[in-house]
């Protein structure tokens, strides 16, 4: 993506934002009333999402997305590996490590500290260390994400590699299920890694309960396991390294309240069942809305986007058709569902 193009986008965004604010004032009485739906083409639906990808940031720059809560995937990857190695070297580690989260808006996204968060380094098609090859480093660990198709995980991967480079005594194998709901595959990955004789495992569990057995089986064989991104119902893991997801949800809710001026109708497109991290975000989001913005009404909060862009877009398209003209804002709790929702909104002409 070329820089000049982006700058134009920013200028445009500024203009659109001003316009947005203006019409917002004017339509202040409209939300709640059935006539003059705020979600019509001239103003567009407010979209608040989670995580940053090239496409999402671009849309943010054009004012099509009003806010994104971003995590720090690089730090997640880096901290996970460093913490795991620390524990392998018998040093004390914290049980819970928060890696921070931030709200990105069309207003603040050019600031340098935010830019670093939204353009993290990524690891693409990096060749892996062979798990059972000759051991060239002291420690050999496997890092298992929830999936391998989201940009988010590529940044986590980059962070993990960065840590490995800095430490110098650890080899990383990166391997995850392709679909972000394939619990069985993740269980088998852990089992295969144990059989291949790794020294440690860092895993982003797809399910807080289903992964307990294989993880504890690994721990029982003296292989320390660290959970990242999403927690596990077990107190035997080394540590839990993640964004404070609940707080991320709180940030998103406050941003929504701000843009809608505390009034409006909302669709919450959930991510997937049993995913601890996104459920936390959704909970933080709904809790905050209920507490601080009682006049924002939930139109739909029972639909799940599913594991891929495609599934999210499909679900979003049917939601939009179902509730056309009956909502002002949408919240999605991860990258794929935000992107799918954005594409669906674009397709329906509901974005500015």
């Amino acid at each position, binding site marked *: 993506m070329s820089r000049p193009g982006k700058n134009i986008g920013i200028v445009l965004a500024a203009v659109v934002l001003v316009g947005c604010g203006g019409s917002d004032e004017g339509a202040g009485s409209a939300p709640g009333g059935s006539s003059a739906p705020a979600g019509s083409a001239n103003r567009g639906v407010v979209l608040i999402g989670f995580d940053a990808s090239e496409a999402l940031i671009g849309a943010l720059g054009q004012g099509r997305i009003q806010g994104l809560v971003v995590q720090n995937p690089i730090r997640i990857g880096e901290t996970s590996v460093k913490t795991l190695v620390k524990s392998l070297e018998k040093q004390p580690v914290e049980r819970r490590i928060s890696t921070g989260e931030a709200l990105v808006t069309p207003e603040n996204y050019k600031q340098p500290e935010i830019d670093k968060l939204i353009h993290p380094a990524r690891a693409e098609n990096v060749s892996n260390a062979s*798990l059972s*090859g000759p051991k060239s480093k002291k420690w050999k660990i496997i890092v298992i994400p929830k999936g391998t198709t989201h940009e988010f995980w590529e940044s986590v991967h980059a962070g993990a590699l960065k840590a490995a480079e800095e430490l110098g005594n650890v080899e990383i194998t990166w391997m*995850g299920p392709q679909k972000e*709901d394939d619990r069985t595959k993740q269980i088998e990955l852990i089992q295969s890694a*144990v*059989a291949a*004789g790794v020294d440690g495992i860092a895993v982003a569990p797809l399910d807080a309960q289903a992964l307990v057995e294989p993880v504890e*089986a690994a721990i029982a064989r003296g292989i320390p396991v660290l959970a990242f991104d999403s927690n596990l119902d077990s107190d035997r893991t080394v540590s839990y390294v993640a964004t404070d997801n609940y707080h991320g949800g709180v940030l998103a809710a406050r941003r929504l309240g701000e843009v809608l001026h505390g009034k409006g109708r909302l669709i919450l497109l959930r991510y997937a*069942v049993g995913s601890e991290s996104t459920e936390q975000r959704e909970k933080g989001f709904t809790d905050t809305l209920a507490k601080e913005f009682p006049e924002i009404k939930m139109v739909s909060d029972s639909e799940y986007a599913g594991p891929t862009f495609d599934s999210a877009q499909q679900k979003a398209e049917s939601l939009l058709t179902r509730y056309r003209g009956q909502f002002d804002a949408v919240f999605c709790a991860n990258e794929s569902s935000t992107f799918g929702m954005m594409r669906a909104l674009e397709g329906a002409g509901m974005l500015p």
Partner: protein
Amino acid sequence: MKEEIEDIEGIRAAGPGRLRNVLQWVWTVVGPFVGLALIAGFFTYLTRGSGHFLSPDNLRTIAGHTMIVGTAALGMTLIIIAGGIDLSVGSTVALVTVVMALFIKKVDPMLPESLRAWHAAVPMAIVVGILTGGLCGAINGGLIAGLRVVPFIITLGTYQAYRGLATWLASSTTIYVPSSMRPSWFGGLVAIQPEPRWLMVSPGVWMLLLLSLFLAVSLKFSLLGRYSYAIGSNEATARLCGINVPGMKVILYAVGGLAAGLAGVLDFAKLGGVGVPTTAAGLELQVIAAVVIGGGSLSGGEGTVLGTLIGCLIIAVLQNGCVHAGIPNAVQDIVIGVIIVVAVTLDRLRRGRAA
């Protein structure tokens, strides 16, 4: 003209064909093993540095990973031999996990204290899970026989419907069975390291082997088995010979469903007692791939239990080997795709030369 050529073939087969038949038989039996050995050898070479690939631990792991696919594939073998296909296997498995989770949560508190202490709800749930699978299969078979629509379409429909039913029953979420309701032995069913160590492999693997033996014997020595081959080879002939084709179809798909139900029980145990409406997505394709790699023909009449098991092992070895060698997902998928095509082509060549 065709007749004349066949005449000659007939005469030739009567003469020195015996040796050829023996060779053909040897090749049929040994052929799939060759593929497995080649793939295993390849990964052993790739990971020669550590020697972990052929370690008993890893072999145990690979065996454990064939459990679910293998159990479902036994049923699929029977169905494919009879010229059918069942695309709803993965959805059935998901439905079974959900039904089991709901059943345990519902029934456990209703049981008297003495039975609760024994976790009696779990064995009951296992039976319910298997029967749920059988029911799904019977519905498939009933629709196929009753509506006379090809199995591909019917099971494509139930593939969606069973998944939808699972999601609906689970209210679109995951059903967690509290740990207090789960007996300690339940996870042990599918544990890679079996509890009494002398078992060598997971109890689930032993069960798979026993069932395989039973199915292999049934295919050869039972009416059901012979009738399946008849229907798969030529349905018209089967009808002509007085075989109740629609009735057999219901039975065959129900048996396939029971196998899928059992696979669902195993998946439920593997997931640690979680009913997941999205689990086992794409399982049906792995299962079909295993049967086809093992020599099953999608046009029916062909397929063996041994071949299917080897097909499952080939897939499991590939997936496990790729983890060991650090080969990324994308490459794994390409390799599995290539192997399916190569295996089936080789199989055809082999038969082409033999026939």
